[in-house]
């Protein structure tokens, strides 16, 4: 019993302790000119969907949920956002060459088609980030058109 108590105390101290380790917040209040939605004429429904389903990890501004202020959830998210932005940052879209745009658009189509994106760990909590079949189709059609027009 005593050992359990000690372990519980250590865990608690550890948990409180890690709260003081600062994390990098992905927040920006300006949208740069290179943003995907500013460069392309994106229908409003798709804009909304991208914002809700993609921009949290693929732009310079994350809408943080409350629990992300608590470690270790914050670390987990920080990692994902870093990786997500390295792969694709919608805010910096127009700084890519048309070759790279085209291959990014291709990847977007593939990942939506196969359901790889948005990540399961993300849609688990962000239910509204999930794509219905119709939404996925609409987005894929739009991206395909955009890709062909590049």
């Amino acid at each position, binding site marked *: 019993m005593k050992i359990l108590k000690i372990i519980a105390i250590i865990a608690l101290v550890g948990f409180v302790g890690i709260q003081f380790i600062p994390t990098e917040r992905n927040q920006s209040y300006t949208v740069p000119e290179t943003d995907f939605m500013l460069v392309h004429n994106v229908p409003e429904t798709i804009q909304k969907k991208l914002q809700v389903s993609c921009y949290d990890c693929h732009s310079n501004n994350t809408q943080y949920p409350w629990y992300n202020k608590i470690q270790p959830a914050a670390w987990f998210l920080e990692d994902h956002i870093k990786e997500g932005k390295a792969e694709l940052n919608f805010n910096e879209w127009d700084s890519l*060459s048309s*070759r790279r745009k085209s*291959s990014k658009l291709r990847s977007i189509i*593939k990942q939506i088609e196969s359901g790889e994106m948005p990540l399961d760990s993300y849609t688990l909590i962000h239910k509204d980030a999930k794509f219905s079949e119709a939404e996925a189709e609409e987005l894929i059609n739009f991206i395909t058109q955009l890709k062909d027009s590049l």
Partner: protein
Amino acid sequence: MTVGILVMTLTLTAISCKDGKKDEPAAPMSNEMYQESMDDKDDMAMSDNQDAKAEAILKDYFNLKDALVGDDNDKAKELGATLASTFGNFDASSYSDSEQQELKDIMEDATEHAEHISESDIAHQREHFKIISKDVTDMVAITGTENTLYQLFCPMYDGGSNWLSMSKDVKNPYYGSKMLTCGEMQKEIN
């Protein structure tokens, strides 16, 4: 801690400044070399140096292609990593400005896809290989190559996909043993 990092940064900056100065006298010489290689290009004979770089990419590309033909996921991972660094090391400095820009775009794109190949399952590797094949084809259009290459075409994979090979025999990297001979020779390059 912060002070330590600051001191280290300053030291590093100081070292790199020194290096920069040392390089200066050498600059006119490399200019000459640049002009020489431009002249060579006018004669339609590229300097060995240039060729070696495009050839290195082609060599690694063909190795990767063979790994995919052989359904070898692990080997393709390894070769993807190799190819990523070969793409990254490509030196386009001897080409014209517009060619340099194009080559830079190609290399950036291709590096990213090669990196993905180094960490994916074989289905994904093949998706990325398709894009790399286009990148490498576009590169060859600029750099040329000393060997005769063949552009092959598989109508079934992903709405039709190309790849390059040194041989006109069809050995399909998109399907491997599943449909090894699916496809056709489309074009001879060089």
